[in-house]
């Protein structure tokens, strides 16, 4: 029974993740169109809703091209390395509390609750950069190589700030288990970490921006930087291999949005309704995550790309000191007993 429940929850959550990723590809095109006074894809299905399906079919039917001189094994390995860690991270995200359906108790709505859930996500999302780097290297193309190089330097720089900011939250709540972090923010809406004076807001802004850099999104998408590098690391990729890179990127975005919600916005806590049933919690969680996902797209179609030196300056000279100071202030708050 326990195994069946786990299987059910896992398949539902992974289905939800893949569905969200697919919908995100559509949302990306739709929102960008709206912001540019266009309509966006509207031919497949009502309002273009089935577009991701059509894209998927197209990706499968496309011819696979392997460039001459590519390192075959690594070339094939890279898309998997990009997609699989990104998909695995969703396992520890707590979507809602206790689920009771038809009088049956299904336990908490998440695949698993690890004591080190936060570390698990950070470690695996750190691994997903290998897909980008190795894909860039194995393609035997200068554009891909440059994309991979940039991705590696960028990821390492911003992962630092990301972890530092997350650590501040860990210090505030005293837990690395994501569910415990959510539980620590229960009660009033002002218990959410984002409402911790100064530290919460600075942390949220830092974390969100570092997330953008970590998932290679605009304005930090140097790995694929179209005007300079054609497509960057995925220039030479086609067909399903390319689709896997895409899937990985959108899954990583989704999980990062979930993580931001959990760390700063109280996870599945419903404002002004403490003992909400699980489906209301799930809805609240979805709304918060949806906002961050929209933010990803929103920012992409608003800001121009940074220059590479600006990215590095920002990462090392602004973000890291501010993140460290943030951590320090959190420590001081805890030592003084104010948090």
């Amino acid at each position: 029974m326990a195994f069946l429940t786990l299987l059910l929850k896992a398949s539902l959550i992974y289905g939800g993740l893949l569905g969200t990723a697919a919908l995100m590809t559509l949302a990306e095109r739709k929102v960008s169109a709206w912001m540019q006074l266009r309509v966006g894809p509207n031919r497949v299905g009502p309002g273009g809703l089935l577009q991701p399906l059509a894209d998927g079919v197209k990706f499968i039917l496309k011819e696979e091209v392997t460039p001459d001189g590519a390192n075959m094994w690594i070339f094939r390995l890279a898309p998997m390395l990009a997609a699989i860690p990104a998909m695995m991270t969703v396992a520890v995200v707590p979507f809602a509390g206790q689920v009771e359906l038809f009088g049956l108790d299904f336990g908490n709505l998440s695949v698993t609750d690890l004591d080190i859930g936060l570390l698990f996500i950070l470690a695996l999302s750190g691994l997903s950069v290998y897909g980008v780097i190795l894909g860039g290297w194995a393609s035997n193309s200068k554009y891909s190589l440059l994309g991979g190089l940039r991705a590696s330097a960028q990821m390492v720089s911003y992962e630092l700030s990301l972890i530092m900011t997350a650590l501040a939250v860990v210090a505030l709540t005293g837990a690395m288990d994501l569910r415990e972090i959510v539980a620590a923010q229960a009660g009033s809406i002002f218990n959410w970490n984002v409402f911790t004076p100064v530290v919460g807001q600075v942390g949220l802004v830092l974390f969100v921006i570092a997330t953008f850099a970590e998932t290679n999104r605009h304005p930090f998408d140097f790995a694929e930087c179209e005007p300079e590098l054609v497509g960057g690391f995925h220039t030479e990729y086609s067909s399903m291999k390319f689709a896997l890179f895409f899937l990985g990127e959108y899954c990583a975005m989704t999980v990062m949005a979930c993580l931001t919600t959990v760390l700063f916005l109280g996870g599945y806590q419903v404002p002004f309704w403490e003992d909400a049933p699980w489906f209301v919690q799930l809805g609240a969680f979805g709304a918060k995550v949806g906002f961050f996902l929209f933010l990803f797209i929103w920012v992409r179609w608003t800001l121009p790309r940074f220059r590479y030196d600006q990215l590095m300056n920002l990462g090392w000279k602004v973000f890291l000191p501010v993140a460290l100071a943030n951590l320090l202030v959190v420590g001081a708050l805890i030592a003084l007993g104010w948090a």
Partner: protein
Amino acid sequence: MVDLLFYVAALLSVLCALGVVISENPVQSVLMLLGSFLGIAVIYLLAGFQFLAAIQVLVYGGAIMVLFLFVVMLLNLGDPEVQADEPLFHGRGRVTGGLGVALAALAVLLTASRGTALAPVETYLWPEGGLDPLLGMAEAMFGRYVLPFEAASVLLLATAVGVMALAKRQRTKRAIAPAPLESKEAAA
């Protein structure tokens, strides 16, 4: 089940470690090293050290190996035959050197394991008290041994700075070396 996983992970990390040395392609070496680290992370996990496993993946897998890859990719990776024109040891020296290193490693291992009888896998894979070893480690690192720990980090930093300084000086020297620009122009 745990035994099986342990042996698989152990075999993986040992084979990958071998691969690091054997592989001719530096990028493949780095990948092998990554595989080895991941195998070790699995062993940590099996031993109940969740935190250590995650940190292993996060720090070694996510950051350090990425930097390795970064550097290796920046190198000019031409024909491995050409690259290997100056091997560390030649002919017989290579064999004796390798044997020497292996013997030294064996000696270290034997010394380290002296007095600890080879226990069955389960006894040390599932320590009593779950995560308590983690607390012990934290106390040791940030309490009793905080000074040596910090000293080690300063030492590492000094090493990094020293390497940078050495590498930098070499490069400037090469740049100063007279470039036969004028003679080339004359020939043209």
